[in-house]
């Protein structure tokens, strides 16, 4: 009897191609996708680089040498720095401390290094200061950068000290005889102080929650929208679609009706999640309500369009189930819903831009984390709206086959 049950179960599995794929192939596909996304960090070419801006407010031999050493670091990508010479200004952006802070605040760079010009009193005391302006959104970048800057400073200090010793021997001049005019060079021989400043997360009550709320919300928005869009396939399977299209309803109206409903439900779903986050976890929803509404509307709209596209592409609810699971989990992994994108290699980060999770998360990140204005998420809003439009048009095209055989 038991053998009969086993035999029958195997035969049923063998005859059900979808279940067979879901059982044996999908886990391998998932494993491969996640291995590619998260396992490629050992490869030098794919290692994520930290985007850094450097502001040198106190040009001297030590600062110049430190910047030069930082430029040589493979883990860093200097996207903006203070030009050392006039000729360099053509390919560099002039960065003040304020603009460096602004770059960090806007997420253009992960962190900034500022060589602070000491006040006259400090100069007399012989202490220099280097600030690492960090964004605790990228918790790894600030720590790595601090260590790298420290190493560069120590190296530069040692090199300069060695150079000065050589010069002093050559010149035969006692160190005690230095005047104030050459004091900066002396200061450079002492290790400067490094202070790490968290630009964004320092004042927030619960910084981590604000980052992850959007990630989880977008992923579940996609899942619930796709599940709900399966009603289209159910209607087709039980001939309700025939009946609907025999009435005054057109396919355009049907799709737009479903899209509107899914968007409304998605909006309410996201709103409830953020309200819960605000009440229980202290997300500051009240001061970001405008940006939240704009982002949530376009995100819910794009997710609904995407779900309808998947539904109109599939032949059955079962197929929709496993296709959507694969696609959504992959998009969520690439787009940063599961693991922050800064942990991924640059290649994967760029690939993530093809998912609307990434754009949605960037938008929410700018609103809630970076506290930017609505105009600052314009690009995200445009990309999400455009992708939503493309998805719904694709859904309409795929649905043509249901209109008339």
């Amino acid at each position, binding site marked *: 009897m038991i053998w009969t049950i086993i035999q029958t179960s195997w035969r049923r599995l063998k005859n059900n191609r979808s279940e067979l794929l879901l059982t044996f192939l999908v886990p391998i596909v998932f494993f491969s996708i996640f291995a590619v996304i998260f396992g490629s960090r050992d490869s030098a070419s794919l290692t994520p680089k930290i985007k850094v801006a450097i502001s040198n407010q106190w040009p001297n031999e030590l600062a110049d040498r430190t910047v030069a050493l930082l430029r040589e670091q493979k883990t860093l990508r200097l996207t903006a720095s203070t030009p050392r010479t006039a000729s360099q200004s053509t390919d560099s952006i002039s960065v003040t401390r304020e603009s460096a802070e602004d770059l960090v605040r806007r997420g253009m760079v992960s962190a900034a290094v500022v060589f602070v010009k000491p006040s006259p009193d400090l100069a007399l005391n012989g202490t220099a200061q280097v600030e690492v302006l960090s964004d605790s959104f990228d918790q790894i970048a600030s720590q790595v950068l601090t260590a790298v800057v420290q190493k560069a400073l120590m190296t530069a200090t040692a090199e300069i000290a060695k150079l000065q010793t050589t010069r002093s021997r050559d010149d035969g001049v006692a160190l005690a005889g230095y005047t104030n005019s050459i004091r900066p060079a002396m200061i450079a021989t002492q290790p400067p102080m490094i202070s790490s400043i968290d630009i964004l997360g320092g004042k927030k009550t619960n910084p981590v929650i604000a980052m992850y709320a959007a990630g989880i919300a977008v992923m579940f928005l996609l899942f619930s929208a796709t599940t709900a869009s399966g009603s289209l396939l159910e209607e087709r399977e*039980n*001939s*309700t679609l*025939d*009946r*609907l*299209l*025999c*009435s*005054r*309803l057109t396919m355009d109206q049907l799709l737009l009706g479903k899209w509107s409903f899914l968007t409304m439900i998605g909006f309410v779903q996201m709103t409830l999640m953020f309200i819960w986050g605000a009440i229980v976890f202290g997300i500051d929803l009240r001061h970001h309500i405008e940006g939240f509404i704009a982002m949530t509307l376009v995100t819910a709209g794009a997710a609904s369009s995407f779900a309808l596209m998947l539904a109109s592409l599939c032949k059955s609810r079962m197929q929709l189930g496993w296709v959507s699971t694969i696609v959504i989990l992959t998009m969520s992994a690439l787009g940063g819903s599961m693991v922050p994108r800064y942990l991924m290699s640059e290649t994967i980060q760029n690939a993530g831009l093809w998912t609307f999770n990434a754009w949605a998360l960037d938008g929410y990140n700018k609103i809630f984390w970076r506290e930017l204005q609505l105009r600052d998420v314009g690009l995200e809003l445009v990309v999400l709206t455009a992708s939503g439009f493309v998805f719904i048009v694709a859904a309409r095209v795929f649905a043509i086959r249901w209109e*008339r*055989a």
Partner: protein
Amino acid sequence: MLGPNTLLALPESVSRNGAIPALEVVNLWKKYGTNQALSGTSFSVAPGERLALLGPNGAGKTTLVRSMCGRVRPDDGQILLFGCSIREPNVLQQLGVVPQDLAIYLDLTAKENLECFGQLHGLRSRKLKERVAWALKWIGLEDRANELTSRFSGGMKRRVNIACGVLHRPSILLLDEPTVGVDPQSRQRIFDMLDELSQQGTCIVLTTHHLDEAETRSDRIVIVDHGKVVADGPIDELIANTIGVRREVIVETEGIMVAAPPGMEWDAARNRFTCYVDNVVEELPHILDRIQRVGGTIRDLEVHQPNLHHVFLHLTGKELRE
């Protein structure tokens, strides 16, 4: 969109005096890959007529039905409702469709389902309320209007399924096997409902595999096979034109027979004689006499009138189609 008051309005060119058929299928052709589903199918239905559309599985019935409600685009030919092509705007509004599947929302109540499909057919406010109330009464579910249809029995679901197709008072009602899987009581109820509609002048086109239903509940029968109409007419006419009006006489005997009487088929295994007669009253005594002469003792006697079942098998054959 038309308003509720214009819902039943027919095109100006259409008259309902019977001169123009309610439904006319003209030389319909449809091919799916290598499978020729329809091969020049033609027939028509008069206003108020009840037509049964029959055919073995794979004969092209479903394609024909789906073509009639505009869900399949034929390769050639046309379908006219009261003289207007179904491709013209709003013409399909005269058609009510009841699919074979339960094309209702099982997670809605009976009333909510009716309201949904009523609205999709352009019914609004008072008119919608009236029609929903009428439909609930018509299907005998007034007292369970607010219950989820998923909790209904098969027969009740079928009735809701039919009601959703007639809310907008269509001139032609297309039913695809409306009684499949329901008990005799529910079937009776469904046909009583359809009779009521028919009496009100609704043209009913019914596809079914229940030949007794087709025979007793329709004015005319169309049999489709291999995508063509192989028979079209009232049941008596079909019988007369195919297997004739001769009665089948079966005589069951006991005892040892010397030989079968001439003109009779002998089923030795069951001790049965079969023959066909034009006039039962005149010929039956002679038949019985002949059997007794060859040594047979008569145990039972059956006289069968030819029916749709015989016609159907005569025209479409006895071999399986699937």
